[in-house]
């Protein structure tokens, strides 16, 4: 106590000065609207800096919640986007409304790989969430794969980076369709097979899903054509394509549920029999 008093006595002049300075500043503040405004401006500057700092910290801890909210929002928006995308591709689609039997379910990627020639992805949604085998899986900018096997809470997805998986594709300009197959090297480089040479396609065309399977609706953008060569011997193009999105680096995916799947499946069985 004695020391505190001593210190106070020793620094009595600066203390008195700053005390009186505060008083005079408050007098200035009260008596002049201009000074009040200017001081308020500085005060606001500092407080806003402080709040911004506080906000950035709380923001960081809220990231998980925000991510989840964004994912939910994206799930809805993606469904709308898919439905809208395919419309202009059907002739007369704007006049006759089409059914859109796909529904989206969001999922998080738990395990992903691209080193093997046949890669699989593990996602955190399973049969209890309504996931069944043979559902298409897409990401925010491209397709990811097809569900292979399902347990109660998890599902195994055949990655698009799988040499046996062929995806039905076409370009936005031409209705000729072919199959997209991974080359096995870089996760971005694919080749497209089975497009006949009389089709009207060019380098730079956007590749979209063809809609000739039960897994993916028509019109999901996948990538673009980088190289085009006419193979005169067999009458097919040999096409190199590059994906928009690296499938080995997706963390959130959407599983496409085709609500007409069983109906279509039973139809096909009848044909086979």
């Amino acid at each position, binding site marked *: 106590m004695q020391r505190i008093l001593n210190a106070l006595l020793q620094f009595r002049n600066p203390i008195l000065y700053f005390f009186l*300075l505060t008083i*005079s500043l408050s007098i200035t503040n009260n*008596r002049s609207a201009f*000074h009040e405004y200017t001081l308020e401006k500085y005060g606001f500057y500092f407080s806003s800096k402080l709040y911004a700092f506080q906000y950035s910290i709380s923001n960081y801890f809220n990231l998980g919640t925000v991510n989840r909210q964004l994912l939910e929002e994206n799930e809805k928006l993606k469904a709308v986007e898919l439905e809208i995308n395919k419309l202009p591709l059907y002739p007369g689609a704007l006049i006759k409304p089409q059914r859109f039997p796909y529904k989206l379910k969001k999922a998080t990627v738990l395990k992903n790989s691209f080193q093997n020639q046949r890669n699989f992805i593990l996602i955190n949604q399973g049969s209890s969430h309504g996931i069944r085998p043979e559902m298409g899986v897409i990401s925010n900018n491209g397709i990811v794969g097809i569900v292979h096997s399902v347990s109660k809470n998890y599902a195994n997805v055949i990655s698009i980076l799988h040499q046996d998986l062929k995806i039905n594709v076409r370009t936005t300009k031409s209705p000729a369709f072919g199959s997209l197959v991974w080359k096995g090297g870089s996760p971005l480089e694919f080749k497209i097979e089975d497009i006949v040479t009389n089709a009207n396609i060019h380098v730079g065309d956007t590749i979209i899903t063809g809609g000739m399977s039960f897994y993916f609706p028509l019109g999901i953008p996948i990538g673009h054509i980088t190289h085009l060569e006419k193979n005169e011997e067999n009458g097919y193009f040999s096409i190199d394509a590059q994906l928009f999105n690296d499938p080995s680096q997706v963390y959130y995916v959407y599983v496409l549920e085709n609500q007409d799947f069983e109906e279509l499946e039973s139809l096909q069985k009848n044909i086979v029999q």
Partner: protein
Amino acid sequence: MNIFSISAIITFISLVLAQTLLFNHFYIFGFVNPIVYLLFFVYYRFESNQTLLIGLAFLLGFFVDFISQSGGAHTIASLTVGFLRPILIRYAFGATMDSPQSYFTDSRRINKLIFLVLMVLLHHTFYFTLVYFSWDAFYLILRNTFITSIFSLILIGIILSFYPNKK
């Protein structure tokens, strides 16, 4: 209550009145308003109580502000000069044993002039900075500080020449 305290009070009151009633109505060149109440810091003896001087400096500026109905600029500038006066004295007269007891007991003209110039510049810088209180007026602050300081110094010099140099 010795003779010095009474004369200090009289100086205090007369300086406040002189500043507010007389010098605040000077408009040399239309904008220069000399500030002479700084004479109080000259008159206040160097070895007297510093804490009291800070309080008096605050009151001096406060009364000038109050009567001339300005903002708090005089208060803050005067308070700062009162607070920093020991440093000004040390700069102007040196920190040796022969530092004078008051302004009037010293006979070194150059040191006295340096003290006055430093004090007036310090006061005017604070005063005009607070009056304009904006970076945009930087040039105005510099111009006013410089020109007003010259006239304040001239007036302070004239008034000081009436005081006898006590040995």
